[in-house]
C-alpha cells in the first residue's frame, strides 16, 4: 500500500512548520546571501555593490577579521583537544566500578544546563577576584589580558561533562565478551584501551568532535559575558555582531557584517563536511 492518499494532508502536517521555517530560516538566508553583495542601512534600501564588502573585510585599514579567524581557530583547536581528552578520561574512569559514579556524573554534567550568559558572568566575577588576589593585577580579570584563556577554562568546565556523557554511552556499548577475550589473551589495560576501547568508541568520538567544534567555533554568549566586545578577544560570531550593530556610523557596516556572516557560514559548512568524512571513515563496524 502506498501513501498517495496522504498527500492532501500536506497543509495540516507540514505547512505550519514550513511557514515558520521559511520565515525564520529560508527567507533570511536568501536575503542574507543577496545583501552580502549590497550596501544597506535597512533591508529595504539595499544597493548592489558586487564584491566590495568582501574586499573591504580583508583590505580595510583597521581590518581585524583575519586575526579574529585565526584566534577562533586556535581557540577551537585547543578547546577541542582539552575537552575531548578530559571528557574521555572522565568517562573511562567513571565506567570502572567506582563508588558514587552517578553522583560524579551528575556534578560534571551540571554546568551544561546553565546558560552561556549566566556561566559567563559567574566566571567573570571569579576570574576577576582570582586575578586580583593571586596575580596582583590591579584591574582584575580584564578580557584583553587573559580573555582567551579565561574563555578556554569556562568552556572546558562546561562542555567536558556533556562530552563525558556521550563517551560513557559509547564505552558502555562495548560488548563485554570482547573485553573478556582480550583479558584472557593477556592484554594489558593500556593495550585494551588503545586496541579495543578507542576503536570501538570511534562513533562517539565523531559525535563529540563534531559537537565541540561546532560549539566552540560558533561561540557567542560566554565570550560576550566574559570578555565583552573587544577586538582582542572577539571570536568570529561576536565580531560579526560587533560589525553589524556597534559600528553603524560606517556606511558599509551592515554590508561587511553580512559578508563576514557568509564567510563564516561557508567555513562552518566546510568544517562540518570534512569532519564528518574524516571521522566516519575511521569508524569500526562492530
Amino acid at each position, binding site marked *: 500500500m502506498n501513501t498517495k492518499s496522504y498527500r492532501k*494532508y500536506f497543509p495540516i502536517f507540514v505547512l505550519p512548520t514550513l511557514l515558520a521555517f521559511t520565515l525564520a530560516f529560508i527567507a533570511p538566508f536568501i536575503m542574507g546571501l543577496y545583501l552580502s553583495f549590497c550596501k544597506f542601512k535597512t533591508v529595504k534600501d539595499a544597493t548592489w555593490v558586487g564584491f566590495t564588502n568582501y574586499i573591504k573585510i580583508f583590505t580595510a585599514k583597521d581590518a581585524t577579521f583575519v586575526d579574529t579567524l585565526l584566534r577562533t581557530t586556535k581557540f577551537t583547536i585547543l578547546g577541542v583537544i582539552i575537552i575531548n581528552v578530559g571528557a574521555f578520561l572522565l568517562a573511562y574512569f567513571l565506567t570502572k566500578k567506582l563508588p558514587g559514579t552517578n553522583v560524579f556524573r551528575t556534578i560534571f554534567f551540571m554546568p551544561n544546563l546553565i546558560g552561556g550568559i549566566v556561566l559567563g558572568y559567574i566566571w567573570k566575577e571569579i576570574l576577576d577576584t582570582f586575578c586580583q588576589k593571586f596575580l596582583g593585577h590591579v584591574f582584575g580579570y580584564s578580557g584583553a589580558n587573559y580573555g582567551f584563556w579565561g574563555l578556554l577554562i569556562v568552556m572546558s568546565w562546561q562542555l567536558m561533562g556533556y562530552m563525558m556523557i556521550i563517551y560513557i554511552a559509547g564505552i558502555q556499548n562495548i560488548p563485554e565478551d570482547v573485553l573478556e577475550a582480550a583479558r584472557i589473551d593477556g592484554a594489558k589495560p593500556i593495550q585494551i584501551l588503545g586496541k579495543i576501547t578507542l576503536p570501538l568508541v570511534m562513533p562517539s568520538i565523531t559525535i563529540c568532535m563534531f559537537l565541540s567544534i561546532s560549539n566552540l567555533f560558533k561561540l557567542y554568549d560566554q565570550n560576550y559575558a566574559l570578555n565583552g566586545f573587544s577586538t582582542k578577544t572577539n571570536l568570529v560570531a561576536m565580531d560579526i555582531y560587533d560589525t553589524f550593530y556597534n559600528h553603524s556610523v560606517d556606511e558599509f557596516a551592515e554590508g561587511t557584517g553580512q559578508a563576514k556572516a557568509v564567510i563564516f557560514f561557508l567555513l562552518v559548512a566546510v568544517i562540518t563536511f570534512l569532519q564528518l568524512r574524516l571521522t566516519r571513515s575511521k569508524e569500526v563496524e562492530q
Partner: protein
Amino acid sequence: MSDINQNEIDELAKSVNATTAKPQKEVNPKSAKLMATISTVVTFCIMVVLSIAWLTPIFLIVMNSFKKKLAIREGKGMAFELLTKDSFTGWSNYVEGAEKVGMRSAIINSVLITVFAVICLVLLTSMAAWFITRVKTKYTTVIYFLFVFSMVVPFQMVMYTMSSIANMLHLNSVPGLIVLYVGFGAGMCVFMFSGFVKAIPFDVEEAAMIDGCTPLQTFFRIVLPMLKPTCITVAILETMWIWNDYLLPKLILPTEVKTIPIAIDACTGSHGVKNLGWLMAMLVIAIVPIIVFYLLCQKHIIKGVAAGAVKG
C-alpha cells in the same frame, strides 16, 4: 584446609582480574588485589577533588549573594573569603536585585516562551517529519534536505535579516518569538524525528490505514505514542537551548520585555545598575530552576543527551 584457601584465593584473584584487567597468570593474587584497591581509592580521590573543583564556582556565587555590597570586592579577592556575621546581609540582595532588574516578569517570560515553543516544536515538527518521511515526492525530499541544511548554518548568517523580517511582520513580541523558535529549531527536530520514524516498521501504520484510519488518526493514535522517547529527547534538547538563549530574544523582543539571560545582562552595568551583590543573587535565581529541573528529570536528560548525540 590449604586446598580450600587456595580455591578462595583463586576466586578472589579472578574477580580482581576482572576489574583490573590484568592477565591472570602473571600476578600474585594478593598484590593484585592490593593494587586494585589502591587504584580504586586513588581514582575515587581524584574524582572527589575534581567534583569539588567543579562545584566551587557555584558555591562562591551562592555565598557571595548573601554578602553586603562592600564585602564582595573590597581590596584584594574578598569574594573568596567565607561568609561572616559582619558581611552577611540576608535576602536583601535577592529582594532588591529582583525588583531592580524585573526578575519576576523575566522568569514568567522565560517560562512562557520555553514551554510554548517546546510544545509547538515537538508537536509540529514530529508531524512534519512523519509526513515527509512517509510521503516520498520530489517536494518532500527537497524540504527534508532544506531542514538538514539549516543545521549547518550558523545563527549569525540569518541574524540581521531574520530580525528585520520579524520587525516588518510585527513579530517582535513573545508569540512572534515562539514562531521564530519553531522555525529556527525545526531543522534539528525534523532531522531527529525522521531518523526515528524510519526505524518504525510501516506495517502497523498500514494496518491502521486498512482499518480506515485517516492520516491524522494514524499519526496521533499510532505513530506519536511510538515516538514518545524521541519526543522527550527533542523536548529536553530544545528546552536547554531556548531557556538559555540570549541573542534571539535580545534582538527580537522590545527592550522592556526581558527573559532571564537578558535580565542578568542588565544587572552588569553596561545597560543599567552595577551592584555585584545583586548580580550574584540574580545569578543564583537563574541557576536554581534549571538545577531543580535537572535533579528531577536527570535520567531523561542524560539519556536524551546520549540519544540525541547518536542521531545528531
